[in-house]
């Protein structure tokens, strides 16, 4: 029995059409889409939970859900949004889809491991959500699961939560190993590291953080589960244990986790802006060093989450200074993006609008972040809504805005069809207004002492809470144009052609959607992924006006 054509054999083994998205496919593009769709499903679930939170907080009394239920809802909301939406989508979805293109490979370094990493996610998510129904009560101790709270709330739900997070952590580590090996080992011959698109560097940095920090969380959660099941006393003060050790170990993962969520977003924005501004990415080298500096600094700032946990003065000093230093590489990246846009022929389409809004939101979240690193200020606003506002400006205003920008930018690559720009801009407008309306007032609430994670509050806070809830309602409505857009476009959207943005990065130098082997022939050697400047003339784009580029999204 001889196999004449391996590709033929593969076709007979792998389901075709839409069925392949429900199969154990080894194609990095299929896995990327699986991550994306799966992530969006969890986003809608987590969003509905956020809706419950904001409805409850529309009035000072706990009159919408019971207090216990409120705690379950906020725990599930946080866990789903972090571990099942942002981390899998910015890493798993866009990383898997784009990285092999960017390094000039046919697939990831370990395709089977890649598929395993994805297929850990749906069971973990279902496990997490079903704990509410099966275990009698979902975890109630927040996504941080601080003991002794996590030791005193119903054990079954907490154990299911731990199990779910361990599965998701495993998935994340497998993904990280794959990205590191792909970027370092699978580059096509002749392609140097400093010629890679910026997203590769972002994913390399992110994956280093994943590999170094996620295992520590896993070990910590195993010890916590011993405390719950075997009644050991690692983190139980009543048995001589030490809760602060849990906090240290937890934040050793969970602070880098913020960078695991935003570094890929930095990379994606660095891909989107040069294409639509028709200019090279400004300061490539400084961008690379900034990412690596953020990786190193990100690992040594965790205790700024613990300034109220009896940290000794030297520790406060060190972590304040180290945290403040992060503003330097982050600032470099921001000025690089602004310089990339400066003087460019900017096409203000949905992808760029979301990217620019990301810059706006993230600068705001970054400034409150530097403020929170200062001990006196942090002690004042610790565990208040100021922290909630800061965090959402980083992960929603930062990462989620970039996910939307990336969706508009790469949807033509995924499907061969262009998303509708009018619906896209409506989506942007509703999201941007809704987001800022929802979270900006929470800074004021936190400064004035409204604690987070409590179902009831002082009636003096009512007005701004109601404003915030209206913002949340707008955010909920904003998903409608997105869903309508995606569905309508998939059915009858205008064909995009292979390269609707006239981009130079390698994923556009093939058909849209790409063939299974990514390129019909050999992978192209792209040594200047951002060579727009003079190259634009060579490509005869010089005659195009800004208006043409604007309307290019509609053609």
């Amino acid at each position, binding site marked *: *029995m001889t*196999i004449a*054509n*391996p*590709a033929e*054999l*593969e076709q007979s*083994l*792998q389901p075709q059409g839409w069925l392949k998205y429900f199969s154990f496919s*080894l194609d990095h593009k299929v896995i990327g889409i699986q991550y994306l769709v799966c992530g969006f499903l969890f986003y809608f679930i987590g969003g509905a939970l956020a809706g419950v939170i904001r409805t409850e907080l529309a009035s000072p009394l706990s009159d919408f859900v019971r207090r216990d239920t409120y705690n379950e809802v906020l725990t599930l909301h946080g866990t789903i949004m972090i571990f099942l939406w942002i981390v899998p989508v910015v890493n798993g979805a866009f990383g898997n889809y784009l990285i092999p293109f960017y390094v000039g490979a*046919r*697939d990831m*370094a*370990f*395709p089977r*491991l890649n598929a395993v990493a994805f297929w850990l996610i749906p069971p973990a998510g279902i496990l997490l959500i079903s704990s509410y129904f099966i275990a009698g009560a979902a975890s109630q101790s927040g996504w941080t699961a601080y003991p002794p709270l996590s030791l005193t709330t119903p054990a079954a739900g907490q154990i299911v939560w731990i199990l779910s997070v361990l599965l998701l952590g495993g998935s994340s*580590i497998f993904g*990280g*190993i*794959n990205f*590191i*090996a792909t970027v*370092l*080992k*699978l580059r096509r011959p002749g392609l140097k590291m400093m010629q890679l698109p910026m997203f590769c560097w972002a994913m390399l940095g992110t994956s280093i953080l994943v*590999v*170094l*920090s*996620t*295992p*520590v969380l*896993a*070990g*910590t959660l*195993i*010890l916590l589960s*011993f405390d719950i099941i*075997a*009644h*050991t*006393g*690692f983190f139980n003060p009543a*048995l*001589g*244990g*030490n809760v*602060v*050790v849990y906090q*240290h*170990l937890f934040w*050793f993962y969970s602070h880098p986790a913020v960078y695991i969520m935003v570094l890929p977003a930095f990379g994606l924005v660095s891909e989107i802006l040069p294409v639509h501004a028709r200019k090279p990415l400004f300061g490539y080298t400084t961008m690379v060093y900034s990412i690596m500096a953020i990786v190193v600094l990100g690992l040594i700032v965790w205790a700024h989450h613990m300034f109220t946990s009896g940290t000794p003065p030297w520790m406060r000093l060190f972590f304040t200074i180290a945290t403040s230093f992060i503003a330097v590489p982050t600032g470099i990246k921001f000025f690089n993006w602004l310089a990339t846009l400066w003087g460019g022929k900017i096409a203000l389409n949905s992808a760029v609008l979301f990217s620019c809004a990301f810059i706006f939101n993230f600068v705001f979240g970054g400034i409150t972040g530097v403020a929170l690193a200062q001990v006196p200020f942090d002690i004042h606003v610790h565990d208040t809504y100021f922290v909630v506002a800061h965090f959402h400006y980083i992960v929603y205003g930062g990462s989620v805005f970039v996910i939307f920008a990336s969706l508009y930018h790469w949807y033509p690559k995924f499907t061969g069809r262009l998303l509708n720009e009018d619906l896209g801009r409506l989506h942007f407008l509703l999201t941007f207004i809704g987001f800022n309306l929802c979270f900006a007032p929470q800074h004021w609430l936190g400064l004035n002492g409204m604690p987070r994670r409590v179902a009831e509050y002082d009636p003096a806070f009512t007005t701004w809470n109601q404003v915030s809830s209206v913002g949340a309602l707008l955010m909920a409505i904003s998903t409608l144009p997105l869903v309508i857009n995606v569905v309508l476009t998939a059915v009858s959207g205008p064909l995009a052609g292979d390269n609707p943005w006239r981009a130079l990065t390698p994923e556009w130098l093939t058909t849209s959607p790409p063939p299974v*082997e990514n390129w019909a022939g050999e992978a192209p050697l792209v040594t200047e992924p951002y060579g727009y400047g003079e190259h634009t003339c060579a490509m005869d784009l010089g005659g195009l006006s800004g208006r043409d580029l604007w309307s290019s999204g509609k053609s």
Partner: protein
Amino acid sequence: MDTRLSQTTSASVVLPASEDESHGSHADHRLFGLATFLVADGMTFAGFFAAYLTFKAVNPLPEGSSYELELLLPSINTVLLLVSSFTFHRAGVACRSGQMTRSQAWLLVTTALGAAFLAGQMVEYFSLPFGLRDNLFASTFYALTGFHGLHVTLGVICILVVYWQARPGGRINAASHFGLEAAELYWHFVDGIWVVLYGILYLL
């Protein structure tokens, strides 16, 4: 026939037909991937060590509770593991030079040393004056040595699998021996962790 089909399948799914030959068996990348995973695994231990050292520095031992460790047995165990690293290395050298019978013999010796280590660990567990829940140090001691023991157990199973695969006509031979190299790397890692663990838990 079956093996051939499955090998062709995996290759074609992983890579397009034209690159099947040039990429060969991908051995280098798999070892690199394993090494990255071991870095991650090592971080789990690092977290445990950090917890143990902090407990020791901050939390006083409650009155009336005991936490004393005998040195003799774990020291013998340390020697056993270090020797087993050497014997595994010999097995690898023998395999690469095509002496599969000799390689299998070294693998058996390594297995015996690993099993002896686990037996020694069991003897120690049953002779210790404290149990899992007695105090913080006892808990951490059992968590750390238990987690390491789990790694050793897994390693012994891996060596037995490699031993089976290294039989005449098996999939491991002088030309193709990724499984053996992976198990060897893992075994050295587990030994290295034990040396650190021995230093921190028993000597410090």
